[in-house]
């Protein structure tokens, strides 16, 4: 494995005090006895070389999408596919088109928007239409992490929800539990996969690939811990919406100009 900047803990931090489950602690005690004995070694393993280390405590990422600007070109879908080797037929990000009229609404996402959108005819007369990009919302109160039976799915301290491909047993519970359809079981790795906000890029100061290529500024990526961050400013001051708010998942992906038709 190449030498890489790793998160620096101040000390081998004990588990999040919110996890007060006695059984979990007892089991970890038993299982972690081994870790405890080698406590020093483990801490060394996760802290990178001093000075180079990326400190995840200094960041809390968020994503902002302005649906008024999206032109449905699909560049984001293609970029994500190229950046992350997404398998065919599955999507870490996709675009939905909404064509809405008083008598009905039509929603489609041909191949997730990969090749753009063809013209569409609807039986009713549409009065408005727009595109809505979708990705994993990296929720604060994720149902997907909650249901993972082996602790393969987790949330980093900088706010990114990730899947440990070596721990995942491929049970598919997280795929069922995600209300947004962001997850899938990869036919290649037989584990759960989803958008990672290009963790391998953002921890190097780059932006996710989809944000990088978006030609209209629809997609924005920001850091809620930076004072001058434009995404943070918009989230704090503009009228923003989230998907399926009644489920209280606390998504960190915010939308400007979201329409009531969108789930």
């Amino acid at each position, binding site marked *: 494995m190449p030498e890489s900047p790793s998160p620096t803990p101040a000390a081998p931090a004990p588990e999040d005090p919110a996890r007060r489950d006695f059984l979990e602690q007892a089991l970890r005690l038993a299982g*972690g006895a081994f870790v405890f004995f080698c406590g020093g070694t483990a801490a060394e393993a996760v802290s990178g070389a001093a000075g180079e280390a990326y400190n995840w405590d200094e960041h809390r990422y968020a994503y902002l999408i302005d649906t008024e600007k999206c*032109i449905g070109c*699909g560049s984001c879908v293609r970029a994500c596919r190229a*950046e992350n080797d997404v398998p065919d037929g599955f999507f870490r990000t996709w675009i939905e088109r909404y064509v809405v009229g008083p008598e009905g609404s039509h929603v489609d996402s041909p191949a997730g928007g990969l090749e*753009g959108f*063809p013209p*569409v005819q609807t039986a009713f007369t549409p009065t408005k239409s727009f595109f809505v990009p979708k990705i994993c919302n990296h929720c604060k109160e994720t149902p997907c992490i909650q249901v993972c039976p082996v602790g*393969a799915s*987790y949330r980093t301290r900088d706010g990114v929800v990730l899947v440990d491909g*070596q721990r995942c047993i491929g049970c598919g519970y997280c795929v069922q539990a995600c209300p947004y359809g962001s997850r899938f079981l990869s036919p290649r790795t037989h584990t759960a996969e989803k958008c990672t906000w290009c963790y391998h890029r953002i921890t190097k100061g780059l932006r996710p690939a989809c944000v990088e290529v978006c030609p209209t500024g629809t997609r924005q990526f920001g850091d809620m811990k930076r004072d001058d961050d434009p995404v943070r400013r918009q989230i704090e001051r503009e009228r923003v919406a989230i998907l399926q708010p009644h489920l209280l998942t606390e998504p960190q992906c915010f939308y400007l100009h979201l329409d009531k038709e969108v789930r």
Partner: protein
Amino acid sequence: MEHARHVFRAALVLVVAVAAVMLGRGLLVPRSYGIYGPYRADNVGEQMAVREPRHAGPAACAACHEKQATARTAGGHRTVSCEICHAPLSAHVRAGAVVARMPVDPSVALCARCHRRIAGRPEKFPQVVLEQHVEGALESGVCLGCHDPHSPKP
């Protein structure tokens, strides 16, 4: 309780089995599991290093392709990343060295993806009905006959 001897024996077997399982479990928990939460802490580092970033942004192209870069930033495509129409940088340059030519796609489909008139695009966005916009067949390269992709008008 001499008549309960078999009960104690069964209980002993159970206790031994449970102890064996607990011990075995303890040895099998991954080293970095539980440091930050109920997950393998090593994976964070693994995810950070899962691959080299493939997209680099238009600034990286400008380093060698000044002419196209200047044309682009002055024209209508100033917000369009080079990597949209071509390919991610890693297809062309890796570790500072050119590994392959950048693909160039002259097809109508490429331009149409953004500029074909369809419902959903903001009205102000430049889009045309291709069949009316072009005289003759919609064959590969026809857009390039009038438009410089690095600086299309306007």
